[in-house]
């Protein structure tokens, strides 16, 4: 019987290494193999045990480095070669991270695993701007929704229920599909004047944000050249930015030392 390692499905949070959980930092330090995404910041990669094997399986819209099935197979193969494998994902592995699919595949193949949550982009990006996601009198709920769509199909959402002024909409991967999302929300009655914010490279030193409205958000994404990864939040809570100080983003904490340069070993699956 072949001995297998233990896989940790770890959330890296929104980018700032200080927003990593203590458990995640400890696991990275002890890892002997780390499989990571494009959305993991360099500062967090610097925390990986320098002796660990690093496998980059990054994804970018339109140019997938590896298909999900290949990543699943790679995780199983890696677990058969290493003892302590960290599968590191941006944000939270179980919110639009496809961590559930990897967990199912690991379970089917008898690989022991554990999930370590991370701060999801909606929470991390909004907190960076001192903005809440829910607020008495402004939003009684928050919806995490994906803007990603398969080829030319529309995101399959219940637009009527999303077009609710009492709900905060936190849209992941929505830069490209925003014209459809904005049109459907307005057609279903959400006011074009509803506050909205675009947050690019959330919680990293490269973060930039732009406050706008639902009716103008598409024009702003275009005019101001926002690129993925962006978090888009629509809802009355965004209007609180006028009443709260916007913190200046600090460079990453110097206590985190920079490790030797990543080798970015590109993964090959057997």
């Amino acid at each position: 019987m072949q001995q297998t390692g233990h896989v940790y499905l770890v959330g890296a949070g929104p980018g700032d290494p200080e927003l990593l959980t203590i458990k995640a930092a400890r696991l990275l330090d002890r890892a002997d193999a780390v499989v990571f995404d494009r959305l993991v910041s360099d500062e967090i990669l610097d925390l990986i045990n320098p002796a660990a094997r690093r496998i980059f399986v990054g994804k970018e819209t339109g140019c997938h480095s590896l298909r999900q099935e290949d990543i699943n197979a790679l995780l199983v193969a890696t677990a058969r070669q290493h003892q302590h494998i960290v599968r590191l994902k941006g944000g939270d592995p179980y919110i639009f991270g496809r961590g559930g699919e990897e967990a199912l595949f690991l379970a089917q193949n008898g690989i022991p695993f554990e999930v370590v949550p991370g701060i999801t982009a909606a929470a991390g990006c909004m907190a960076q701007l001192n903005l809440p996601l829910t607020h008495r009198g402004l939003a009684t709920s928050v919806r995490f929704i994906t803007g990603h769509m398969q080829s030319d199909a529309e995101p399959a959402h219940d637009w009527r229920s999303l077009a609710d002024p009492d709900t905060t909409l936190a849209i992941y991967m929505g830069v490209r599909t925003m014209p459809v999302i904005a049109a459907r929300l307005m057609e279903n009655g959400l006011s074009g004047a509803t506050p909205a914010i675009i947050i690019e490279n959330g919680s990293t030193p490269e973060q930039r944000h732009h406050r706008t409205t639902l009716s103008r958000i598409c024009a702003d994404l275009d005019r101001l050249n926002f690129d993925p990864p962006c978090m888009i939040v629509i809802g009355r809570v965004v209007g609180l930015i006028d009443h709260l100080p916007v913190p200046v983003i600090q460079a990453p904490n110097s206590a985190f030392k920079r490790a030797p340069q990543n080798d970015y070993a590109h993964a090959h699956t057997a």
Partner: protein
Amino acid sequence: MKTAFVLGALAILAGCTSLEPRGTHDLATVIARASGEVGIIDTSNREMIAVIPGLGDLSHASIVYSRDGRYAFVFGRDGGLTKVDILTHRIAGRILQAGNSIGGAINQDGSLIAVANYEPGGVRVFDSQTLKMVADLPALIGHGPDRSKVVGLVDAPGNRFVYSLWDSGEIRIADFSRSRTDPDITVFENIGIQPYDALISPDGRYYIAGLFGEDGMALLDLWHPERGVTRILPDYGKGEERLPVYKMPHLEGWAMAGDRAFVPAVGRHEVLVIDTHNWAEIGRIPVHGQPVFVMAHPDQRTIWVNFAVPDYDTIQVIDSETMTIIHEIKPGKGVLHMEFSPRGDQIWMSVRDDNQVLAFDPYTLAPIASLPLNSPSGIFMSARAGQTGL
């Protein structure tokens, strides 16, 4: 390194093939946005004669021409400023002058190139021969230290540049007629909230800035700067908010025909008709989608309109006399830009999703050329060399 060597060798070969003397007035450049390339089109022979790689991030890129029409100055989004020799198909100079830029201009005597910057904000001015910086205009917000994003940078008669400050709601004139390194700056404050783009009338007299943060536009009469900035078209931008605004219309595309200007409405399926004597709206023409560019044919008889997503497969043609739509064509998905040949015998357009640059006879609407190019966007005829504001 190896790639650079190979490209260099190709450029030398390309240069060798064009030893025959020729003019540039029938040449055009086209931005290939996705691949960071610029295509050079010979509009007489209707062929793509070169594709120049290595120009960086060209989303929202634009081009101006040297006074002699030989060099194209390409303004990239990433702050890159590249001088392309369209006769020998070589890069004659390239600098990275800022982190994020939005267009530029060449002054009246052709000696200065100015670039409008987002990050860091302000305007940087370069010698058009050497691309060495001669002036850095920081566009400070108040007394600083923050710099404003600069938009709507144009050249104006008298070796002036005119531009707008997004963050502080100002129009500024930088007059280089006295000094090449230390321009006289005139500041117009409180011109409106968040100017986002601007145009200058073809005669160089009127500078008009669109406002993102409020309705209406800001007008500066450059014959009479002492009269200050006035507000025109108080309803411009006011929508019924049934539809999102997919793209802010390009103001450079304002078509002036006779004493009328044809203006893309913001977020509505209309082209506005403006009387240029008093800048009052005198009519609205319903169109197929949200207009982006509204271009007058050089003979001013027809006005050509393209549209924002999701209607960007269509071009409509308006009769400037009757103000009705007389033609509609569907060149393909993603018609991003169009440009007439200088005397109007051809119209060229970029069809991004089909990776084609198409040309039509604007009188018969017959297709006359179809040239492949990767994700084409802006098209710039070299005849712009002789036009103020372009």
